């Protein structure tokens, strides 16, 4: 396959390191996690706070908590969230589909759109249209995504009243859900597509100069077959890692847009978990993200090796 043992070892070590970091960081932050659970007025009842501490496992010395933490990871038990009052795993599982519904179309559509338009733009000469379109993409990519989102929300939902103002749905029917998803997906797709466009364009422009293109032309291959059969595949290589990472960081990517559109997905879950010092939930989420990133990375490597024959020989 092309994987050597050191690579695998390195990945595992990296995972170990990250999981440890995941454990340490919330605990190093200032502020007592119980603060938000107690409430406005606590008559000095140390008993109640201690009981809660014991229940949450916070009374143990740090090293013991660490061992428990690993034990839990192995059994995939992420513990309970005391702010959401349910099992962390259940909570995360309930949110994932919604964010997936947002991000998967975005990554796929943004990927295809961006790569196709980028290829065309990179291949064709410097026409006015081409430059104008490139500039447009540049501007879209440079604008802070939430700004775009708010602008869309304001124009389409408030002023034109075409779309709802919040939530994943109102009545739960499929058209209703699609209606709610439309704007967020639009904004994020524009953002991802513009990035992919710029990348692809740059890549194609580089490929254009390479020898094999001239050679293919001399062999009589030209037009769409040349562009999409040969150039595209080579130019797309660097994109593979990028798009794989997009999948890996799916949840963080959705965060700002979820906040603007009031969508109760994974993004907002992360945000709220951080602000309320919900350790178990934070850990659970970070773990899930890390796993996804590692898997995505692995997938990227596999794709890369498959697609690039030069690497296979190594």
């Amino acid at each position, binding site marked *: 396959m092309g994987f050597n043992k*050191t690579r695998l070892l*390195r*990945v595992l*070590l*990296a*995972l170990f*390191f*990250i999981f440890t*970091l995941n454990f340490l*960081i*919330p605990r190093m*932050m*200032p*502020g007592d996690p119980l603060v938000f659970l107690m409430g406005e007025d606590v008559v000095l009842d140390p008993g109640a706070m201690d009981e809660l501490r014991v229940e949450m496992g916070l009374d143990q010395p740090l090293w013991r908590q660490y061992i428990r933490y690993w034990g839990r990871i192995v059994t995939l038990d992420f513990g309970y969230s005391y702010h959401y009052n349910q099992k962390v795993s259940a909570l995360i599982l309930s949110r994932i589909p919604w964010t997936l519904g947002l991000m998967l179309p975005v990554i796929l559509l943004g990927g295809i759109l961006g790569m196709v338009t980028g290829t065309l733009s990179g291949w064709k000469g*410097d026409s006015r249209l081409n430059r104008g379109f490139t500039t447009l993409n*540049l*501007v879209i*990519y*440079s*604008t*802070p*995504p*939430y*700004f775009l989102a*708010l602008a869309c929300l*304001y124009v389409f939902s408030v002023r034109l009243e075409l779309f709802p103002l919040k939530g994943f749905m109102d009545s739960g029917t499929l058209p209703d859900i699609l209606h709610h998803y439309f704007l967020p997906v639009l904004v994020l797709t524009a953002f991802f597509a513009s*990035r992919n466009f*710029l*990348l692809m364009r*740059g*890549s194609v*422009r*580089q490929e254009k100069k390479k020898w094999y293109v001239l050679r293919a032309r001399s062999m009589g291959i030209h037009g769409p077959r040349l562009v999409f059969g040969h150039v595209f595949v080579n130019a797309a*290589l*660097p994109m593979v*890692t*990028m798009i794989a*990472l997009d999948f890996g*960081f799916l*949840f*963080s*990517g959705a*965060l*700002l847009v979820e*906040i603007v559109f009031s969508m109760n997905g994974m993004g907002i879950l*992360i*945000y709220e978990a*951080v*602000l309320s010092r919900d350790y178990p939930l*934070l850990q659970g*989420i*970070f773990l899930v*993200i*890390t796993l996804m*990133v*590692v898997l995505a*990375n692995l997938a990227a490597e596999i794709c890369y090796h498959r697609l690039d024959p030069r690497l296979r020989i190594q």
Partner: protein
Amino acid sequence: MKAQKRKTRGAFLMLAWLLVAVFAGMIAPHDPSRRFEPYSPPGSRHLLGTNDMGYDILSELIMGTRISLLVGLATAAVATLVGLAAGLAAGYSGRFLDEILTGLIDVFLMIPRIPMLILLSAFMQPGALTLSILLGLLWWPPIARIVRSATLQEKKAAFVESAVCLGFSRPRILLGEILPNIMPVVKAKFLMTFASAMIAEASISFLGLGNPLLRSWGRMLYTAFNKGGLIHGMYWWILPPGFCIAAVVVTVMATGMALEETGRSPKREVLRP
């Protein structure tokens, strides 16, 4: 050449922004901490009106250039320095060091940036410099990766071999031979990191998480939305900061892209990962 022209034009624009940042104190018509009548619409005294506390928005915008650009630049500097060091070391040294460094890069690449940033910003409320360091620590891995692969490539070149034969010391080779040849890539990456950092800072400030005393453009957007800017349709408050961010980022990115094209060994993954 087209790219060359774009590069010069981009550099020129960036210089203009930097000048604004440096001379902000003199350019701004009012002291941004001086209070006037709040919620005034644009007029002759206040070209962009005043905000909820009565601060002149234009002055705040101009002074904000300093913060936003400073954070972007400092982050890019930190990230590039660390990335260069790590990438060069990994690319040029033996297997062992390379493995360790690449492992380290992998670890850092796996950290989800935005959640991490939220975590750190929320709890530490960092000032401009601290924020730049934090951002730099999250953004160095992509640079290191590129520097490493570029170094690996250059290592095989003939002139490097001859330098080795001539007995030049390692640092001398690294800094004298390899570094100059990978500079175009590094420069391009520097600019991209600059752009990313600005957007990241703006995003965090927009969520209200950063240090409220850091009056960046992102923070202005947060205040504008929170203090009734949207409800009252105060476009002169909401739009300028957003436009400024976009404008600077476009300039930086366009320059970076032009650099990438005129650079010698164009590499993959130059754009912000």
